[in-house]
C-alpha cells in the first residue's frame, strides 16, 4: 500500500442532514461509498490525504430499490403506449449486485443487469455503487451509458435542497460534472421505457471479463408503426473524454424509417461526430471503427438481420 493510512480520516454521520451539513466545510469531505474507485487510488499512492465521508452510516442513503408507477405526461417517454410508464429509483448505495438480484428491474430495465454482470466480478459488484460510478466520472464507466440511454435523472441533494439533473446533462468534460462539492447524489431515477422499445448493450473490453471498456455502446430505440424511429438514444463509454451521447447521430435517425440507407447514414454521421481518445488501452482508430461497427450491429439486429 503506497499511501499511509494515518493520513486519512473518516467521518460517519448518522443522518442525511448531518452528512449534508458536513459538506459545507472547506474543504468538504470526500464522499466514500463502496470505495472501489477510491481504494485503487489509495493503493497506488495517488489519493489526496484528507477527510472522507462514510455514506454507509446514513440510513436514508441505503434505501432499497423502489419501483413506482410514473405520472403520465404528454412529453415523456412512452407517452403513446397503453400502460403508464413506471419509474425505478436507485438510492445512493444501490450496488450492481442489488440490481442483478432484482427481478422487476431485470424485466423493466434489462440493460442494467447486463452492465452489472460485466463490471468487475462478484466482489466488486457487491460493493460498488451506481452513484459512485456516476460521480467518479470516468469516461470508461460501464454503469453510466445504460442509465443515460434510459434517460435517467440524478438527484442531487445539499443542505440548500434537492435538484434533479438529467444524466445526459451531467458531464461537460473529462471528470467535469454538474455536482457541486457540497452535494451528494442521493438517488437515480430511471423512467421505464415504452413497451416494445428495443435495447442494445455491448461492452468491448480488453478481455472478456474483469476488464475496463475500450468501447461500449448502450442503445435504446422506440419504433413507430411503419418502422419509423420515434426516439433513439446512443450512448458510448470510453470513446470520448466523458460518457458520450451521440446526439447528432440520434437526430439524423429520429423521424426516419429504419432501413439499410438509414443505417449507413447513421454510421457515416457517427464517424464524423466522434473524436475518439488514444490511450494506454486502445487507439483512436480502433475506437472509432468499433463504435461504428457496434452501431451497425445494433441497427442491423433491430432490423432483424
Amino acid at each position: 500500500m503506497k499511501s499511509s493510512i494515518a493520513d486519512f480520516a473518516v467521518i460517519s454521520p448518522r443522518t442525511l442532514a448531518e452528512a449534508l451539513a458536513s459538506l459545507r466545510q472547506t474543504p468538504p469531505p470526500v464522499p466514500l461509498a463502496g470505495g472501489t474507485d477510491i481504494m485503487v487510488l489509495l493503493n497506488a499512492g495517488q489519493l489526496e490525504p484528507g477527510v472522507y465521508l462514510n455514506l454507509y452510516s446514513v440510513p436514508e442513503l441505503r434505501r432499497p430499490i423502489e419501483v413506482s408507477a410514473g405520472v403520465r405526461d404528454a412529453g415523456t417517454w412512452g407517452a403513446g403506449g397503453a400502460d403508464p410508464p413506471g419509474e425505478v429509483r436507485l438510492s445512493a448505495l444501490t450496488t450492481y449486485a442489488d440490481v442483478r438480484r432484482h427481478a422487476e428491474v431485470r424485466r423493466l430495465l434489462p440493460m442494467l443487469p447486463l452492465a452489472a454482470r460485466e463490471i468487475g466480478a462478484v466482489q466488486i459488484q457487491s460493493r460498488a455503487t451506481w452513484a459512485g460510478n456516476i460521480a467518479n466520472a470516468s469516461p470508461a464507466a460501464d454503469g453510466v451509458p445504460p442509465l443515460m440511454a434510459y434517460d435517467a435523472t440524478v438527484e442531487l441533494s445539499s443542505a440548500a435542497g434537492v435538484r434533479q439533473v438529467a444524466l445526459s446533462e451531467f458531464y461537460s468534460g473529462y471528470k467535469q460534472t454538474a455536482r457541486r462539492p457540497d452535494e451528494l447524489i442521493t438517488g437515480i431515477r430511471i423512467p421505464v421505457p415504452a413497451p416494445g422499445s428495443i435495447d442494445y448493450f455491448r461492452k468491448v473490453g480488453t478481455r472478456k471479463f474483469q476488464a475496463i471498456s475500450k468501447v461500449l455502446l448502450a442503445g435504446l430505440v422506440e419504433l413507430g408503426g411503419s418502422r419509423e424511429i420515434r426516439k433513439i438514444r446512443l450512448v458510448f463509454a470510453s470513446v470520448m473524454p466523458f460518457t458520450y451521447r451521440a446526439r447528432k447521430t440520434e437526430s439524423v435517425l429520429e423521424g426516419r424509417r429504419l432501413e439499410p440507407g438509414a443505417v449507413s447514414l447513421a454510421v457515416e454521421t457517427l464517424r464524423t461526430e466522434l473524436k475518439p481518445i488514444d490511450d494506454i488501452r486502445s487507439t483512436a482508430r480502433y475506437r472509432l471503427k468499433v463504435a461504428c461497427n457496434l452501431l451497425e450491429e445494433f441497427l442491423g439486429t433491430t432490423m432483424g438481420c
Partner: protein
Amino acid sequence: MPDVLTTPAYRWVGHNPPRKESLEKVTGSAKYLDDLKFEGCLHGKTVRSTVPHGRIKKISFEPGVPWDEFTVVTARDIPGKNVVSLIELDQPFLADGLVRHMAEPVVLLAHPDKGMAEKAVKRVHIEYEELPAILTIEESLAGGNIQYGKDNIFKKYHIQKGDPESVWPKADVVIEGEYWTGPQEQLYIEPQGVVAVASPTGGVTVWGSMQCPFYVHKGLKPLFNLPDDRVRVIYTVTGGGFGGKEEYPTLPAGHAALLSWKAGGRPVKIVYDRMEDMWATTKRHPCKTRVKAAFTKDGKLLALKVDATMDGGAYVTLSTVVLSRGTLHAFGPYACDHVVIDTRAVFTNSPPYGAFRGFGAPQTIFPLELHLHRAACELGIEPHELRRRNLLHQGDRMATGQVMQEETGLEGLMWKAMDESKYLEKTKAYREHNRSSTRIKKGVALALFFHGAGFTGSGEVFLDSKAGLELTRDGAVRILSANTEIGQGSFTTHSQIVAEELRIPYEMVEVAVPDTAVVPNSGPTVASRTCMVVGELLRRAASDLKEVLVKSGALAGNGHTPSEFRAAAGKYLQRFGELKVYSKYKPPPDVSWDDKTYTGSAYAAYAWACYVADLEIDMATYQAQMKDFVAVQEVGRVIHPVIAAGQIEGGVAQAIGWALYEDVALKQGVMQNCQLTNYILPTTADTPPIRVFFYENPYQNGPFGAKGLGELPMDGPAPAIAAAVAFALGDRIIPRIPILPETILDAIS
C-alpha cells in the same frame, strides 16, 4: 485428467499422490515471505532512477522527514564489490555515478514504520545530467551511441551446416519474412520479497522468495567480501517464479542485506508491491527475427537462414544464455542440409530482460513455425503436410550436427493432435464458413516443435550438481537438494522418484528446506532440469542409500516392507549415527558439445510436441477468441500425470497471453502499464479447454525415463495461434505478437 498413453507398472511413478506442500497452502498455514515476522524488523525501500541514461549529479534528502530515524544506503556504503556476480560483472547492486536504465536502484532506505519508509522514497531527489539513450534494437545496432563493448553486442552465435547461399539461386521458391515477439511479464502471484540479517560478526543470512538459493549465495559473497560459510540463503514458500525469480532475487537480497549491515544487524524486509515489481524487474526478451527459406515446388526444405536479435537491456545478466537457447531452437525439428543461424543480444537502456519460461526458445520457434505456415500457404501445400515432408527422422542430423539416434515420434504426435482437434474436418469447414460469414472468421492451425531439457551444451557439466538423501531419526528419508518448489510440484515428483527407487511409501519421504547451509548445490531450478537432471541424481542417491543399508546388513537385499525399512534405518543410525548419501552429475555417455563451433549434442534430451490452436475472430471487435486447444507431447516418463498436465495447461495459458493479450507498453525503455488493470492477462473466460495428451518414450538417462517438460508448453501456442489468425483472415500473416484486436484491425485495413 490428462490422457497418458501408456501406464507404467510402478507404485509411485506415474501415479498422483497428494502434493507435499498442498495441505499447508490450501489451509493457509504456509508462510510466504511477507508472513514471516522478525523482531525489530525494518522495512526497506528502493529509490530508483527516473531517466534511462544519465550521470547522477546530486542526491538530496528533502527536509521535513526525520532522516535520523532512517537507515540510508548508497553505493558508497558497500563493504565489498558493487557488482552482481552472474555471467559478466557489469551490473551494480546500486548505481554509482551512472544510471543505465529507468527504475535502476540508486538509494536504499529502511525505517521501522512501513508507511514512513514508503513516503520517504518520494522525498529523495536525484538530479541527473541526462545522456542520450538507446531504446530499440535498431538504435543499438546503428552505431554512434556505443555503451557496451565496441558495438553494443553482448553476445553473438553462429551455426552453420552446409551452405544456404549456394541454394537460393537454384531453388524453386525462396520465401522471406520478418517477425517480432514482444516482451512479457512473468507475473508470479507473490511479488519479489526478502528478509536479511547481516553484520560483520554474524555474516549474512537471507530468507526469500526465489528459484535458486545458490545464485543468491554466489551474488552476496563478493558484495560483502565474505567466504562461503558466512553467507546463508534460505528459501521460503515461493508463490511462483516462471524465471522471474531465477537471477533477479539477488538484487533485493543484496539490498536488504546492505541495509541490515548498516543498521547494525537488525532484520530488514523488502517486499515489492505489484507496481514496483512490474516496473523494475525482468521480462521476457523481445526478439526480432528474419527467416529465409528455400523449397522445391513440392515443399522440400532445401535451405534455411535465421537471423535473430534479442534486446538484452542495460546489463548482460542472463542474456547470453537466453540467446544460446534461442539459437539452438531456431531450426526446429526439421531435416535440412543447408542451415545458417545468426543471433545476437544487444544492449539497450531498458531494465535488463531476463529468464522467463522457455528462455529464448519461444522467441525463435515463433518465427520459424509461422514462416512454415506462410510457406505452406504460398506453396499451396497443407501446413501439416509441409511439416511432414521435412520432419527429422532417425539418422538425420540437426543443424548442430547432432544425429537423431532414434525416431522422434513427431509424426505420430502430429496425427494424434490432428485427430483430437478434428483438424482436417475443421480446416475444410472453416474455409467454407469464412467464405460466407462476414461477422465471425474461424481459424485452426498447428505448430511442431521440441524443447531441449537441462542446461545447454556443456552447461550441466559446468554446474557439477550434487544432490543427496539422509535418513531421519524416525527411519524415514529426507531429500537434500537446492531445488525449490515454486508451484511446479518438484517436491512431490522428487519424493515419488525416491520412494519408487527405495520401494518405500511416498509418505516416508520428506524434503529438506532448500537452505544453503543444509543442502548441497544441486543447481538452479530452471531449464526444465529439476525433474530430469536432479531427479536422476536423487534416484541414484536412493539406489546408493539402499546399497549402503544392505551392505551394512541392516536391510535384506531382496525386498522389504515399510516397517522393515524403518527398522533397518533405525539400526543403521544406532550404529553409525547418521547416513547421508550424495550423488554427482555425470554427463550421459556419447553426449558431447563444442562451445567454439556450436556443434554436437546441444541437449541430452528433447521433448517433442504438436499443438493445435482453434479460434475465431469477431469482425465487429477484431478480438481473437480461443475456442479449443490440443497439446500432444512426448516427454519421456510422466512422473505425476496431474502435475504434468497442470504444467502444460498453465504454460499454454501463459503463451495464449503472450500471443493475444499481454502488451508491455514501453516508454523510455520501461514498462508503463505496471498494473493488472492495464497489463492484460487472459482469464479462464478467455482461455479455451486445453486438452493435454502425453506419449511416453522413456529416456534412459532420466529418472524412470522422465524428461523435462516445464517450459515446453510456452513454445508452441504462439505460432499455432498466429497461424490460426492468418487462416481466419484468409492467409494474411500478422508477423508480430501480441496480436491485439488493434493489430488485427490495422492489418486488415
